[in-house]
């Protein structure tokens, strides 16, 4: 005999898993677009996120609200961050961006990937993004839909946590 309660839970779990797959795919797609166009880099492969915090990394946080609310998180190796910042700023060969420049560019990278993700995931939504926070990795990032990206330049982990999921029925047709 089928337990209707268990069936309902199973259906919800399936739907959630499907939604998480879409989110994971959109996170990777958003990162690839931003890295290709503005950082002269690319995503070679993606996998389950690595344990956080990793040593010698920066963490970037961008909060968003509007037709849904949550937080985007990025954890990136120092060497990867420096390489990407140099590409973004057009640094000449042999010169390296300073710590402040690297942090500013990583904040912008987090902002762009978060915005590109939201535009992909919820095309009809309206969201407001906070200014990014950039800091040395010290605490584990909260769990969520997460992917670890292997780039031409190194490793970057991305996470999305929704505190208020999008209610698609409230969006304009």
């Amino acid at each position, binding site marked *: 005999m089928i337990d209707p309660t268990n069936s309902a839970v199973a259906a919800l779990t399936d739907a959630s898993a499907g939604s998480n797959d879409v989110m994971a795919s959109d996170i990777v797609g958003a990162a690839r677009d931003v890295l290709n166009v*503005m950082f002269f880099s690319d995503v070679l492969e993606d996998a389950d996120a690595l344990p956080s915090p990793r040593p010698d990394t920066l963490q970037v946080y961008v909060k968003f609200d509007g037709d849904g609310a949550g937080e985007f998180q990025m954890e990136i190796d120092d060497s990867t961050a420096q390489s990407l*910042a140099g590409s*973004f*700023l057009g640094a000449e060969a042999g010169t390296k961006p300073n710590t402040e420049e690297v942090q500013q*560019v990583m904040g912008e990278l987090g*902002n762009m990937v978060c*915005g*590109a993700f*939201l535009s992909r995931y919820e095309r009809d*939504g309206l969201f407001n993004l906070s200014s990014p926070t950039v800091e040395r990795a010290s605490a584990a990032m909260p769990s969520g839909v997460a992917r670890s990206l292997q780039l031409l330049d190194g490793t970057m982990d991305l996470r999305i946590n929704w505190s208020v999921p999008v209610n698609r029925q409230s969006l304009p047709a």
Partner: protein
Amino acid sequence: MQSLRILIVDDSPAMRAYVRRTFQLASLPIETVFEAANGQEALEIVNAENEAPNKLDLVFADLNMPVMNGEEFVAKLRANERDASLPVLIISTDATQRRVLKLKELGAQGYISKPCQPEMIRLKVHQILGEQ
């Protein structure tokens, strides 16, 4: 195209540097580049430059900024008759259709979604200034 006097409004110094660099990569003739970190600072620069012999030709503005965001900036700019025709090009990560429509209604002349290549910026600048 004449040499341009341009204002870049973005709270990210890195993004302001990127936009400045794309002007060179896109071979846009630039006379002066002004920078502001939010809409409030941008309004102050627009007001000051209104007194200058050569006025601003174009404003590039981000949307999400502290103090005064891009939408408030465009709305306040358009509320002042003297600045009603100053072209504003929004550059933002938010490319949702509702946002773009809202910005058009407020009076922004153009919209570029990040990530964007220098060629896109060049095309939009020519499109907007060519329309005038």
